């Protein structure tokens, strides 16, 4: 590998490099500053902002890092930098910044403040894994980045060790995670055996010639999907989600539900698109190579995922657990965008993700602020909250209404574009299924509103005062929900500009 190639590659990897340096600095500072650990949060913040800066700088950039340099194939690399990746990286970074703010005011995390250095180091490990997942185009790197993300998050799920449920969440996460990554690895080894390469672009050009054992290949694809499906918590690989979301510290739950899911989806989209699309027709529909029926798989899985998520959420009494099931359901909705297999569907997914980031983090944030005071996440304990703490309750209500997808909130826009993509692809039946699911979801979201506003509390709950920074943080998530709900052209334009995946 030539030196110029290396420097070119490193230039493309600036965000990841920055993040790694920040990670090292965090570990160092953790060793140096024994007593006052406050500074570590700020270091984390600065590291994230710097990374974010480089990500934004990369928006118009595209290229391959670490090209294999093999003459017989086109010069594809292990890592692809493109606007699609930058979009998801930005989502991850924004989510991370918000999570740092979360952690600053979370009681659970404050109780373990002497270990805050480890906490941020592990979070940075997760972020690094996500960034690589988003841009990886080589099966080796895909596997490694998934593992990097997973290992860090296994530990974080049980980080506080305060309650039994933390370590139980951690163990369950670990077992399910290892099994699914084992399945994925076996699938990868089969694909490697059949094609002799681990590079997605090369696999794409190799499978265009029909010489594969289709059964084995499909089997391998399903195994690989198991690994990715686990990350995005799609049924039937979702079993860990409710337990881990309920058991983990709420900052980590929120982070997993948004960032980890975003990275998983980016990986899934990139994997499907690069490996299987033979060409994109004039109206933006992807024509797949006929080796594996992704469309049917994704349609079935997404219907299954959202139905299961929504119906299970109906009888949850713990708000965190309910939000976990709701996030499973949302994964189902988002997958619909992929099932369309078109540029329009992809745009809809990106829009949905940007919106989902705001509303889901917002919901978790409010739940956390409330849990800090009343020390409970049970929905029954929210009785009468609408009157004792009007601001928090109203914010939670708006976040939940947005999750339902009612206008004029941003959640509606996400659903709208998904529906448009589905109808445009003539998949109206699927749109109707999604719609029925939305009605089901309405019931459990409204149930929270009911407890906050309509049910009289048995014992009067005290007012929950929010500090100024927290109020601002809630507003930062809340206001865009209305802005994008009413004027969403900028968001749509951004998403439209970010659907190009390099090489296609």
């Amino acid at each position: 590998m030539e030196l110029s190639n290396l420097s070119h590659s490193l230039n493309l990897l600036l965000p990841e490099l920055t993040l790694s340096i920040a990670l090292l600095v965090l570990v160092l500072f953790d060793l140096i500053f024994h007593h006052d650990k406050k500074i570590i949060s700020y270091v984390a913040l600065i590291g994230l902002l710097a990374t974010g800066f480089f990500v934004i700088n990369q928006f118009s950039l595209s290229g391959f890092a670490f090209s294999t340099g093999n003459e017989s194939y086109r010069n594809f690399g292990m890592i692809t930098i493109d606007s699609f990746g930058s979009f998801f990286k930005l989502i991850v970074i924004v989510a991370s910044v918000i999570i740092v703010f979360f952690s600053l005011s979370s009681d659970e995390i404050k109780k373990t403040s002497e270990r805050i250095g480890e906490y941020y180091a592990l979070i940075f490990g997760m972020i690094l894994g996500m960034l690589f997942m988003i841009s990886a185009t080589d099966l080796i790197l895909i596997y490694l980045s998934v593992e990097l993300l997973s290992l860090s998050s296994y530990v974080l799920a049980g980080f506080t060790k305060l309650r039994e449920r933390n370590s139980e969440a951690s163990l369950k996460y670990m077992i399910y995670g290892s099994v699914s990554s084992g399945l994925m690895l076996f699938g990868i080894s089969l694909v490697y055996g059949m094609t002799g390469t681990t590079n997605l672009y090369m696999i794409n050009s190799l499978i265009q010639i029909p010489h594969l054992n289709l059964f084995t290949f499909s089997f391998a694809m399903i195994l690989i999907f198991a690994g990715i499906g686990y990350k995005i918590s799609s049924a039937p690989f979702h079993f860990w989600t409710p337990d881990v979301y309920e058991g983990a510290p709420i900052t980590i739950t929120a982070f997993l539900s948004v960032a980890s899911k975003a990275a998983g989806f980016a990986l899934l989209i990139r994997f499907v698109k690069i490996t299987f699309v033979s060409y994109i027709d004039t109206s933006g529909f992807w024509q797949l190579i006929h080796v594996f029926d992704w469309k049917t798989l994704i349609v079935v899985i997404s219907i299954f995922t959202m139905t299961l998520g929504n119906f299970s959420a109906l009888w949850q009494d713990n708000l965190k657990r309910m939000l976990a099931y709701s996030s499973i359901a949302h994964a189902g909705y988002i997958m619909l965008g992929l099932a369309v297999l078109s540029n329009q569907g992809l745009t809809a997914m990106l829009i949905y993700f940007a919106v989902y980031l705001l509303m889901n983090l917002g919901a978790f944030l409010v739940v956390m602020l409330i849990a800090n005071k009343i020390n409970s996440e049970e929905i029954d304990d929210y009785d009468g909250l609408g009157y004792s703490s009007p601001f928090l309750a109203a914010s939670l209500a708006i976040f939940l209404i947005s999750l339902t997808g009612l206008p004029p909130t941003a959640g509606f826009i996400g659903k709208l574009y998904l529906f448009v993509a589905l109808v445009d692809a003539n998949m109206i039946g699927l749109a109707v299924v999604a719609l029925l699911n939305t009605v089901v979801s309405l019931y459990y979201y409204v149930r929270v509103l009911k407890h906050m506003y309509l049910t009289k509390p048995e014992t009067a709950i005290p007012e929950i005062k929010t500090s100024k920074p927290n109020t601002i943080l809630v507003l930062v998530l809340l206001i865009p929900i209305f802005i994008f709900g009413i004027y969403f052209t900028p968001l749509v334009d951004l998403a439209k500009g970010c659907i190009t995946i390099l090489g296609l």
Partner: protein
Amino acid sequence: MEQNHLLTYLLLTPIAGSLLILFLKEENPKLIRWLGFLISIAAFIISLFVYFGFDASAADFQFQDKILWIKSLNVSYFVGVDGISLLLILLTTFLTPLTLLSSWKAIEKKVKMFTFMMLFLETGMIGVFMSLDMFLFYIFWEAMLIPMYFIIGIWGGEQRIYASVKFFIYTMFGSLLMLVAIIWLAVYASGPLGSFTTNLLDLYKVGPSVPREIQSWMFFAFLLSFAIKVPIFPLHTWLPDAHVQAPTAGSVILAGVLLKMGTYGILRFCLPLFPQSAVYYAPFISMLAIVGIIYGALVAMVQPDMKKLVAYSSVAHLGFVVLGIFAMTEEAVQGAVIQMINHGLSTGALFLLVGVIYERTHSREIAYYGGIAKLIPVYCAVLMITSLSSIGLPGLNGFIGEFLILLGSFKSSVLNSWWFTVFAASGVIFAAVYLLWMYQRVVFGTVKNPELQNKLTDMTARELIVIVPILIFIVWIGIYPSTFLDMTRLSTEKILRSVGSFTLSLVK
């Protein structure tokens, strides 16, 4: 046509007012009440300006205001009124201040939130009636759900939570189906029109050319959503719960305006957008309407609870409106529009009156009362006029609407059978039975219940101020309906013209 922002001001007045109220202190309910009332009066005055500026001799949408909103979807903020929507907007702006005034005593807790919700709701209702863009329409349509949910849920009766959730889920289900149909139609329109659009005036041109089979699906998707709101017979089960549990103001708005949105939607969207399907399925839907008329009347007859009785009478009255719309003759549709207004006035007034005595005795049981004629004569007189108007006594408003609908359905070539008229007419008789019977049991006879002596007092000045304007209109429409019929004539004709050619093809 020149741009005119009057409608936008009308739309913004209540919402701006409601935001203003959010900043007031909860401790001063009097100020909040007055301010809310004045804001709704202001909205009424603006709507009067619209009325006086309205040109009844033009069939087009007037006061159009259009701003491109979302370029990528070709969605714009586009409002305008024709005779039908103007009449309904006037009804809305007329009823809202009255309901606010009526609830000065009934609503004692959380006055600020209540006033906020009512004004928010008013914006939603006005917006629904003036939107000329399907996307905008949908947003207003959905935006009303949340305030109504809270109005029923917070200030309602004992089973308010069950009722509010039921109401929410029913309507949400229908409206989401409509959303899919809107998108479907807009995507379909991108073929002939060259781009995705939700502009209603453009879609009017496209709708009839949608292939028959797809058109039926879209028609039913829209119809289902509206039918839940109306409600048409098998979908009515949310209505009694919501009506009975809602506070008086909520019931009045629900009966007076919200139900009309369903029938308005049928008239504005289902008929002109999907004329073939509308004509084809008209007998079927009219049948459901007839079932609704008779069923509503029979069930109303056996209700022990006054509010429930009025609620079921709504099902029957709305059945008339639906029958009128699907008869598709000029008389019938005109009658349907007038009947929408009538129902808003008479049923609204009935709910107010039930609320008046409920405030005093906290009972709505018919059996609890009896012989109150001697105790509160003014109230009984007012109740008499309102009941008679609801029954359809000649000289009062109900008669005009029902007569036109019956006449029109008899002549209708779409329905093509006089059986519809016969069965519908029986509904009028039933209405007389259940309302007069209730009146007799409540008002006449001897005072059996000693509690009544102490608790009942006659109507106060405030309550009279609320009810008298409604009575004026009840009599006005009954004696001189031309004021209103003239307004809607051309608009009705225009809708019927769009269906007309298909009507003829069916007759052949």
